Protein backbone atom coordinates (compact mmCIF):
# COMPACT_ATOMS: atom_id res chain seq x y z
CA UNK A 1 0.00 0.00 0.00
CA UNK A 2 1.50 3.39 -0.94
CA UNK A 3 2.26 5.80 1.89
CA UNK A 4 -0.43 8.35 2.63
CA UNK A 5 -0.31 11.53 4.65
CA UNK A 6 -2.82 13.41 6.77
CA UNK A 7 -2.84 16.81 8.41
CA UNK A 8 -4.80 17.16 11.65
CA UNK A 9 -5.84 20.72 12.46
CA UNK A 10 -7.20 21.03 15.99
CA UNK A 11 -6.46 23.47 18.80
CA UNK A 12 -7.23 21.03 21.60
CA UNK A 13 -4.07 18.95 22.25
CA UNK A 14 -6.17 16.19 23.80
CA UNK A 15 -8.46 15.91 20.82
CA UNK A 16 -5.57 16.24 18.39
CA UNK A 17 -3.70 13.36 19.99
CA UNK A 18 -6.72 11.10 19.80
CA UNK A 19 -7.21 11.83 16.09
CA UNK A 20 -3.50 11.37 15.36
CA UNK A 21 -3.54 8.08 17.22
CA UNK A 22 -6.53 6.89 15.20
CA UNK A 23 -4.93 7.85 11.88
CA UNK A 24 -1.66 6.14 12.77
CA UNK A 25 -3.59 2.88 12.91
CA UNK A 26 -3.99 3.10 9.13
CA UNK A 27 -1.01 1.28 7.69
CA UNK A 28 1.46 3.56 5.92
CA UNK A 29 -0.22 6.75 7.16
CA UNK A 30 2.06 9.68 7.98
CA UNK A 31 0.40 12.26 10.22
CA UNK A 32 1.30 15.88 10.89
CA UNK A 33 -0.43 18.34 13.21
CA UNK A 34 -1.38 21.99 13.30
CA UNK A 35 -3.01 23.92 16.15
CA UNK A 36 -4.99 26.32 13.93
CA UNK A 37 -5.81 27.18 10.33
CA UNK A 38 -2.87 29.51 9.81
CA UNK A 39 -0.40 26.90 11.00
CA UNK A 40 -2.07 24.44 8.64
CA UNK A 41 -1.70 26.82 5.69
CA UNK A 42 2.00 27.13 6.45
CA UNK A 43 2.37 23.35 6.57
CA UNK A 44 0.55 23.05 3.24
CA UNK A 45 3.04 25.26 1.45
CA UNK A 46 4.82 23.50 -1.47
CA UNK A 47 6.55 21.14 -1.74
CA UNK A 48 4.59 19.70 1.20
CA UNK A 49 1.62 17.54 0.31
CA UNK A 50 -1.13 15.87 2.30
CA UNK A 51 -3.63 13.35 0.97
CA UNK A 52 -6.31 14.36 3.46
CA UNK A 53 -6.99 17.08 6.02
CA UNK A 54 -9.03 16.73 9.20
CA UNK A 55 -9.97 20.02 10.81
CA UNK A 56 -11.86 21.38 13.77
CA UNK A 57 -14.11 24.38 13.10
CA UNK A 58 -13.68 26.63 16.11
CA UNK A 59 -10.02 27.51 16.53
CA UNK A 60 -8.11 30.67 17.39
CA UNK A 61 -6.15 32.71 14.82
CA UNK A 62 -7.77 31.02 11.81
CA UNK A 63 -10.83 28.81 12.13
CA UNK A 64 -11.68 25.70 10.14
CA UNK A 65 -14.15 27.44 7.83
CA UNK A 66 -11.58 29.99 6.73
CA UNK A 67 -9.09 27.16 6.23
CA UNK A 68 -11.51 25.30 3.95
CA UNK A 69 -12.08 28.49 1.95
CA UNK A 70 -8.35 28.99 1.52
CA UNK A 71 -7.74 25.40 0.44
CA UNK A 72 -10.64 25.28 -2.01
CA UNK A 73 -9.50 28.56 -3.56
CA UNK A 74 -5.99 27.20 -4.14
CA UNK A 75 -5.65 25.34 -7.43
CA UNK A 76 -2.81 23.24 -6.04
CA UNK A 77 -4.68 22.14 -2.93
CA UNK A 78 -8.35 22.19 -3.88
CA UNK A 79 -8.57 18.46 -4.60
CA UNK A 80 -7.52 17.41 -1.09
CA UNK A 81 -10.42 15.80 0.81
CA UNK A 82 -11.30 17.67 4.00
CA UNK A 83 -13.01 16.11 7.00
CA UNK A 84 -14.61 18.54 9.44
CA UNK A 85 -14.85 17.66 13.12
CA UNK A 86 -17.75 19.36 14.86
CA UNK A 87 -20.11 18.95 17.75
CA UNK A 88 -23.61 17.76 17.01
CA UNK A 89 -25.01 21.05 18.32
CA UNK A 90 -22.95 23.01 15.79
CA UNK A 91 -25.19 22.10 12.86
CA UNK A 92 -24.81 25.53 11.28
CA UNK A 93 -21.00 25.23 11.28
CA UNK A 94 -21.25 21.79 9.75
CA UNK A 95 -23.59 22.92 6.97
CA UNK A 96 -21.41 25.92 6.26
CA UNK A 97 -18.31 23.71 6.11
CA UNK A 98 -19.97 21.33 3.66
CA UNK A 99 -21.17 24.26 1.55
CA UNK A 100 -17.61 25.58 1.44
CA UNK A 101 -16.34 22.26 0.14
CA UNK A 102 -15.72 19.94 3.08
CA UNK A 103 -15.88 16.32 1.97
CA UNK A 104 -17.29 14.75 5.14
CA UNK A 105 -17.81 15.44 8.81
CA UNK A 106 -17.34 13.63 12.09
CA UNK A 107 -19.15 14.60 15.26
CA UNK A 108 -17.61 14.81 18.70
CA UNK A 109 -17.09 12.89 20.87
CA UNK A 110 -15.15 11.05 18.21
CA UNK A 111 -14.58 7.33 18.09
CA UNK A 112 -11.29 6.19 16.57
CA UNK A 113 -12.94 3.49 14.38
CA UNK A 114 -15.21 6.17 12.89
CA UNK A 115 -12.22 8.36 12.01
CA UNK A 116 -10.40 5.43 10.43
CA UNK A 117 -13.43 4.37 8.39
CA UNK A 118 -14.14 7.90 7.13
CA UNK A 119 -10.53 8.45 6.06
CA UNK A 120 -10.28 5.03 4.43
CA UNK A 121 -13.43 5.69 2.41
CA UNK A 122 -12.28 9.12 1.25
CA UNK A 123 -8.85 7.80 0.26
CA UNK A 124 -10.25 4.71 -1.40
CA UNK A 125 -8.40 2.40 0.99
CA UNK A 126 -9.92 -0.98 1.66
Amino acid sequence: MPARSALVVEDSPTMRQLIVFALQRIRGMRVDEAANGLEAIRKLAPPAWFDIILTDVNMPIMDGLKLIQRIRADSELQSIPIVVITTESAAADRERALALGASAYITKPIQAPQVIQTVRELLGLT
Partner: protein
Amino acid sequence: MADDDAGEALPGLLARGVAVAERLVAENRRLRRELDSREAETRDAEAETHELASLYIAARQMLGTHDPRDVLRAVVEILVNFIGAKTFALYLRDETGTVLRPVVGHGLHIEDMPAAGAESTIGQVFLTREPPVGDDIAPAPLDGPPRLAVPLRLGDTSVGVVAVWAFLAHKAELYDVDRALLDLISTHAAHALEAARLAAAGPGGSLDYASVAELLE
Protein backbone atom coordinates in the same frame (compact mmCIF):
# COMPACT_ATOMS: atom_id res chain seq x y z
CA MET B 1 -20.85 -51.00 -25.34
CA ALA B 2 -19.11 -47.66 -24.86
CA ASP B 3 -22.51 -45.93 -24.68
CA ASP B 4 -23.62 -48.35 -21.95
CA ASP B 5 -20.46 -47.55 -19.91
CA ALA B 6 -21.09 -43.86 -20.34
CA GLY B 7 -24.71 -44.32 -19.29
CA GLU B 8 -23.63 -46.09 -16.13
CA ALA B 9 -20.83 -43.59 -15.34
CA LEU B 10 -22.93 -40.44 -15.68
CA PRO B 11 -25.09 -40.91 -12.56
CA GLY B 12 -21.93 -41.62 -10.59
CA LEU B 13 -20.23 -38.51 -11.93
CA LEU B 14 -23.31 -36.45 -11.15
CA ALA B 15 -23.51 -37.85 -7.63
CA ARG B 16 -19.84 -37.06 -7.04
CA GLY B 17 -20.36 -33.59 -8.48
CA VAL B 18 -23.32 -32.97 -6.19
CA ALA B 19 -21.32 -34.20 -3.20
CA VAL B 20 -18.45 -31.90 -4.07
CA ALA B 21 -20.85 -28.97 -4.48
CA GLU B 22 -22.46 -29.73 -1.13
CA ARG B 23 -19.06 -29.86 0.54
CA LEU B 24 -18.14 -26.53 -1.06
CA VAL B 25 -21.38 -24.94 0.11
CA ALA B 26 -20.79 -26.23 3.63
CA GLU B 27 -17.19 -24.99 3.56
CA ASN B 28 -18.37 -21.65 2.26
CA ARG B 29 -20.82 -21.39 5.17
CA ARG B 30 -18.09 -22.32 7.64
CA LEU B 31 -15.72 -19.73 6.19
CA ARG B 32 -18.48 -17.11 6.25
CA ARG B 33 -19.12 -17.82 9.94
CA GLU B 34 -15.40 -17.64 10.63
CA LEU B 35 -15.10 -14.36 8.74
CA ASP B 36 -18.05 -12.89 10.68
CA SER B 37 -16.41 -14.03 13.90
CA ARG B 38 -13.06 -12.49 12.92
CA GLU B 39 -14.77 -9.23 11.96
CA ALA B 40 -16.50 -9.13 15.34
CA GLU B 41 -13.17 -9.76 17.04
CA THR B 42 -11.60 -6.96 15.00
CA ARG B 43 -14.39 -4.57 16.00
CA ASP B 44 -13.93 -5.50 19.66
CA ALA B 45 -10.18 -5.03 19.36
CA GLU B 46 -10.66 -1.63 17.69
CA ALA B 47 -13.03 -0.56 20.46
CA GLU B 48 -10.60 -1.76 23.11
CA THR B 49 -7.73 0.02 21.40
CA HIS B 50 -9.80 3.21 21.27
CA GLU B 51 -10.54 2.87 24.98
CA LEU B 52 -6.89 2.34 25.88
CA ALA B 53 -5.78 5.21 23.65
CA SER B 54 -8.39 7.52 25.17
CA LEU B 55 -7.27 6.62 28.69
CA TYR B 56 -3.62 7.02 27.83
CA ILE B 57 -4.08 10.40 26.17
CA ALA B 58 -6.39 11.64 28.94
CA ALA B 59 -3.95 10.58 31.66
CA ARG B 60 -1.04 12.12 29.80
CA GLN B 61 -2.84 15.43 29.37
CA MET B 62 -3.95 15.62 33.01
CA LEU B 63 -0.68 14.52 34.57
CA GLY B 64 1.77 15.97 32.04
CA THR B 65 1.64 19.52 33.37
CA HIS B 66 2.40 21.47 36.53
CA ASP B 67 0.07 24.31 35.64
CA PRO B 68 -3.30 24.13 37.44
CA ARG B 69 -4.95 25.84 34.46
CA ASP B 70 -3.72 23.11 32.14
CA VAL B 71 -4.93 20.40 34.50
CA LEU B 72 -8.41 21.93 34.62
CA ARG B 73 -8.33 22.50 30.85
CA ALA B 74 -7.46 18.84 30.33
CA VAL B 75 -10.32 17.70 32.57
CA VAL B 76 -12.74 19.94 30.66
CA GLU B 77 -11.45 18.67 27.30
CA ILE B 78 -11.79 15.05 28.37
CA LEU B 79 -15.35 15.64 29.52
CA VAL B 80 -16.29 17.55 26.35
CA ASN B 81 -14.35 15.82 23.60
CA PHE B 82 -13.98 12.27 24.85
CA ILE B 83 -17.10 11.72 26.94
CA GLY B 84 -19.47 14.15 25.26
CA ALA B 85 -20.53 16.11 28.35
CA LYS B 86 -22.30 19.33 27.45
CA THR B 87 -23.15 21.05 30.74
CA PHE B 88 -21.00 20.44 33.77
CA ALA B 89 -18.98 22.00 36.60
CA LEU B 90 -15.99 20.97 38.67
CA TYR B 91 -16.39 21.72 42.37
CA LEU B 92 -13.68 21.85 45.04
CA ARG B 93 -14.20 21.84 48.81
CA ASP B 94 -13.71 25.15 50.61
CA GLU B 95 -11.35 25.64 53.54
CA THR B 96 -13.95 24.28 55.97
CA GLY B 97 -14.20 21.10 53.95
CA THR B 98 -17.99 21.16 54.17
CA VAL B 99 -18.99 23.33 51.22
CA LEU B 100 -18.17 22.72 47.57
CA ARG B 101 -17.59 25.69 45.28
CA PRO B 102 -17.54 25.57 41.46
CA VAL B 103 -14.10 26.27 40.00
CA VAL B 104 -14.61 25.66 36.31
CA GLY B 105 -17.54 24.73 34.12
CA HIS B 106 -18.75 24.25 30.58
CA GLY B 107 -22.11 25.10 29.04
CA LEU B 108 -23.08 27.21 32.06
CA HIS B 109 -22.11 30.45 33.77
CA ILE B 110 -19.83 29.36 36.57
CA GLU B 111 -20.45 32.59 38.49
CA ASP B 112 -24.17 31.77 38.59
CA MET B 113 -23.64 28.32 40.07
CA PRO B 114 -24.35 28.13 43.80
CA ALA B 115 -22.07 26.39 46.26
CA ALA B 116 -23.13 22.86 47.15
CA GLY B 117 -23.67 21.87 50.76
CA ALA B 118 -23.48 18.45 52.39
CA GLU B 119 -27.21 17.87 51.99
CA SER B 120 -27.12 18.26 48.19
CA THR B 121 -26.59 15.42 45.71
CA ILE B 122 -23.17 16.86 44.92
CA GLY B 123 -22.39 17.05 48.64
CA GLN B 124 -23.49 13.47 49.17
CA VAL B 125 -21.24 12.23 46.37
CA PHE B 126 -18.41 14.22 47.95
CA LEU B 127 -19.05 12.72 51.40
CA THR B 128 -19.77 9.13 50.41
CA ARG B 129 -17.29 9.02 47.50
CA GLU B 130 -19.86 6.87 45.74
CA PRO B 131 -20.56 8.04 42.20
CA PRO B 132 -24.23 7.48 41.36
CA VAL B 133 -23.53 6.58 37.75
CA GLY B 134 -26.78 5.34 36.26
CA ASP B 135 -27.89 4.50 32.75
CA ASP B 136 -30.11 7.54 32.28
CA ILE B 137 -28.19 10.41 30.72
CA ALA B 138 -31.13 12.56 29.65
CA PRO B 139 -30.51 16.26 30.37
CA ALA B 140 -31.30 17.37 33.91
CA PRO B 141 -32.45 20.92 34.82
CA LEU B 142 -29.52 23.06 35.92
CA ASP B 143 -31.34 24.18 39.06
CA GLY B 144 -31.72 20.57 40.25
CA PRO B 145 -29.41 17.68 41.01
CA PRO B 146 -26.94 16.74 38.29
CA ARG B 147 -27.56 13.70 36.11
CA LEU B 148 -24.17 12.31 37.01
CA ALA B 149 -21.56 13.18 39.62
CA VAL B 150 -18.16 11.70 40.35
CA PRO B 151 -16.00 12.40 43.41
CA LEU B 152 -12.48 13.73 42.94
CA ARG B 153 -10.39 11.51 45.16
CA LEU B 154 -7.07 12.37 46.72
CA GLY B 155 -5.84 9.35 48.61
CA ASP B 156 -8.45 8.39 51.16
CA THR B 157 -10.42 11.62 50.93
CA SER B 158 -12.49 13.57 48.46
CA VAL B 159 -11.50 17.09 47.50
CA GLY B 160 -14.27 17.83 45.05
CA VAL B 161 -16.87 16.61 42.60
CA VAL B 162 -17.45 16.76 38.86
CA ALA B 163 -21.19 17.25 38.28
CA VAL B 164 -22.73 16.76 34.82
CA TRP B 165 -26.23 18.01 33.98
CA ALA B 166 -26.34 17.27 30.27
CA PHE B 167 -24.58 15.34 27.54
CA LEU B 168 -24.51 16.06 23.82
CA ALA B 169 -27.90 15.41 22.26
CA HIS B 170 -26.74 12.56 20.04
CA LYS B 171 -25.12 10.68 22.91
CA ALA B 172 -27.52 7.86 23.69
CA GLU B 173 -25.69 6.11 26.49
CA LEU B 174 -22.53 5.94 28.53
CA TYR B 175 -20.14 3.41 27.04
CA ASP B 176 -17.43 1.41 28.81
CA VAL B 177 -14.82 3.91 27.65
CA ASP B 178 -16.87 6.78 29.15
CA ARG B 179 -17.08 5.03 32.51
CA ALA B 180 -13.34 4.28 32.38
CA LEU B 181 -12.60 7.94 31.64
CA LEU B 182 -14.88 9.11 34.47
CA ASP B 183 -13.05 6.72 36.78
CA LEU B 184 -9.74 8.12 35.55
CA ILE B 185 -10.93 11.67 36.33
CA SER B 186 -12.20 10.53 39.72
CA THR B 187 -8.94 8.86 40.71
CA HIS B 188 -6.33 11.06 38.99
CA ALA B 189 -7.63 14.61 38.43
CA ALA B 190 -7.21 15.63 42.08
CA HIS B 191 -3.70 14.15 42.18
CA ALA B 192 -2.79 16.11 39.05
CA LEU B 193 -4.27 19.28 40.53
CA GLU B 194 -2.48 18.76 43.83
CA ALA B 195 0.84 18.20 42.07
CA ALA B 196 0.30 21.38 40.07
CA ARG B 197 -0.67 23.30 43.20
CA LEU B 198 2.43 22.13 45.06
CA ALA B 199 4.63 22.97 42.11
CA ALA B 200 3.14 26.45 41.85
CA ALA B 201 2.74 27.32 45.53
CA GLY B 202 5.34 25.16 47.24
CA PRO B 203 4.77 22.74 50.13
CA GLY B 204 2.17 23.45 52.77
CA GLY B 205 -1.46 24.38 52.55
CA SER B 206 -4.09 22.08 51.14
CA LEU B 207 -5.90 21.43 47.92
CA ASP B 208 -9.12 23.41 48.19
CA TYR B 209 -11.16 26.02 46.37
CA ALA B 210 -9.22 29.01 47.75
CA SER B 211 -5.76 27.64 46.98
CA VAL B 212 -6.68 26.71 43.41
CA ALA B 213 -8.68 29.88 42.76
CA GLU B 214 -5.65 31.90 43.85
CA LEU B 215 -3.46 30.12 41.31
CA LEU B 216 -6.01 30.68 38.57
CA GLU B 217 -6.09 34.46 39.08
